[in-house]
């Protein structure tokens, strides 16, 4: 399979499915996707930012079952693509498109589709050369088509698609009809197709302390094929209270957390490849590693890092699972009167591209970012030494939930309509509360950065 992948966020997918599902007379439904692109180093991405449903008046009568549209409409769409520095993807279907439950019968562009693409895509490229253009047909779980990447005259037919609902579905998905049926009915049963899905996945774990050190071996135990561990710190005494995975010998030997995580993963599953990145977000090596992942798990201890990860994941359409935990007092811990413990709050956030982000949930706000640097900006962000506290069991619980969320993203064991965006953990009562959240209409990140891809410099 080629390194080229078309990614469609959940909100865009919904518009696509609605548009293709409409009954129209005299032609087949056609929609246009406006797309950006990116090169992550691991692969090339085409990221669909928006789905445009042409008005009925844009179409011309068509002799066959296909669709023809007016040149004037095409020019209008091209002008828009050029102004927004996006490419155009033509979407249509040969039968019902259902990425989760549809038939696995492979679809192909018809001869008419191919001829149309051969004529149109180079013209699109001549007007808007900096972004990809393509023609894609969908049916059942399958997608096929051609993509013309910037700077290339080659029609690329080999690509995968990745769509997001409350799971992440990558097609083509190798498997017999029986295996796919089994995946639908028993998504967490140990079998070849689940094993394959997990093995073909790369998960980046950012932060390898209290939470991250416990996430890594669990991912290895699941059989995740590649785990990228990102952290540049050495084990310190405080870590011993925060996790069962960093021990006295690691402290004595002044081991890097990255090295400890690598060893832990190997002990559990030597077939799970661990790649250590000795950096912190947003240093270059860390950003490059995050972009290359299929899923990112954030186990960081500051709001700025979360903001960086959220932005990066949205830009490249990567699901983001974030966990955090704190033991709170209402005054500084060090005060002589020993302020009492007031709370043990934690969070599990799951961001699926197209759904609510951490800014929509107000987990991230400008006020929180300013508070972290006393309003003076990024140059004043410093690590804070927290009071050591016995939080390892709470971190363990959240780490396990994060791994469950990764599993849900990959195999979709939860009901399809369930929302899994934001859970609050209360360590005092031991309960996890699901919070219903919606995407904010005016969210800057969701409106400007989602599926934005690499910048186009001119």
């Amino acid at each position, binding site marked *: 399979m080629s390194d080229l992948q078309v990614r469609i966020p959940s909100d865009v997918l919904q518009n696509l499915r609605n548009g293709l599902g409409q009954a129209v007379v005299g032609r087949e439904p056609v929609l246009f996707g406006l797309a950006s692109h990116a090169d992550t180093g691991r692969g090339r991405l085409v990221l669909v930012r928006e789905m445009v449903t042409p008005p009925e008046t844009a179409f011309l009568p068509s002799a066959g079952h296909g669709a023809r549209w007016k040149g004037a409409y095409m020019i209008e769409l091209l002008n828009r693509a050029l102004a927004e520095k996006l490419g155009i993807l033509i979407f249509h279907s040969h039968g019902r498109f259902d990425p989760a439950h549809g038939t696995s019968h492979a679809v192909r562009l018809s001869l008419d589709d191919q001829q149309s693409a051969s004529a149109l895509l180079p013209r699109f490229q001549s007007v808007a050369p900096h972004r990809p253009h393509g023609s894609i047909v969908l049916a059942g779980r399958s997608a096929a088509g051609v993509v013309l990447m910037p700077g290339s005259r080659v029609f690329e037919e080999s690509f995968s698609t990745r769509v997001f609902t409350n799971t992440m579905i990558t097609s083509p998905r190798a498997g017999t009809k029986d295996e796919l049926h089994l995946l639908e009915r028993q998504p967490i049963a140990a079998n070849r197709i689940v094993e394959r899905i997990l093995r073909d996945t790369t998960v980046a774990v950012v932060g390898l302390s209290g939470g991250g050190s416990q996430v890594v071996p669990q991912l290895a135990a699941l059989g995740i094929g590649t785990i990228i561990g990102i952290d540049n710190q050495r084990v310190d005494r405080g870590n011993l209270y925060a996790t069962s995975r960093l021990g006295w010998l690691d402290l004595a030997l002044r081991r890097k957390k990255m090295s400890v995580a690598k060893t832990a993963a190997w002990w559990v599953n030597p077939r799970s490849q661990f790649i250590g990145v000795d950096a912190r977000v947003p240093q270059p090596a860390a950003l490059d590693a995050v972009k290359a992942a299929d899923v990112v798990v954030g186990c960081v201890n500051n709001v700025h890092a979360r903001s960086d990860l959220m932005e*990066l994941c949205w830009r490249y359409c990567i699901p983001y699972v974030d966990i955090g935990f704190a033991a709170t007092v209402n005054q500084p811990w060090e005060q002589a009167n020993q302020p009492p413990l007031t709370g043990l709050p934690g969070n599990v956030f799951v961001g699926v591209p197209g759904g609510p982000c951490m800014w929509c949930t107000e987990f991230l706000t400008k006020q929180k970012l300013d508070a972290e640097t006393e309003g003076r*900006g990024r140059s*004043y962000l410093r690590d804070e030494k927290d009071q050591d506290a016995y939080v390892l069991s709470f971190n363990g619980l959240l780490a396990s939930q994060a791994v469950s969320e990764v599993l849900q993203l990959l195999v979709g064991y939860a009901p399809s309509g369930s929302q899994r965006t934001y859970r609050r953990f209360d360590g005092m009562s031991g309960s996890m509360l699901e919070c219903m959240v919606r995407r904010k209409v005016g969210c*800057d990140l969701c409106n400007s950065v989602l599926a934005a891809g690499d910048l186009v*410099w001119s």
Partner: protein
Amino acid sequence: MNTETIDRMVAELRGAFPDAKTAEDGNRTLVRLPVVPFPKGCTPDETEALVVLTPGAAQPELYVKVIPMRPDGGVPRSTGTTSVGGESWCTFSFSVPWDENRHTAMQFVLARLGRFVRNE
């Protein structure tokens, strides 16, 4: 900053740096300067820089690819890293006021970089 100021800044930067490139990121205009000089005596002596122009913001932002050593051999304080448009850039503190009605783009860039001469 209003849009007229942003357009002026872009034009001035393109005029001063012929290899400059621009990109749009949401409502922000980014101007990439392949080579800008640090103050004399800094090591290294030049860097790639990024100017970010946001409508409504009080002033432009300037980021660099590397933080230099000062001419006295010292390491500047209050520096950090940030992500802009999916790319990593270095941030640094400064205490230079900027007036969009009086100062040019070059004055902005050079004044900001001038902090690397000072022990701060």
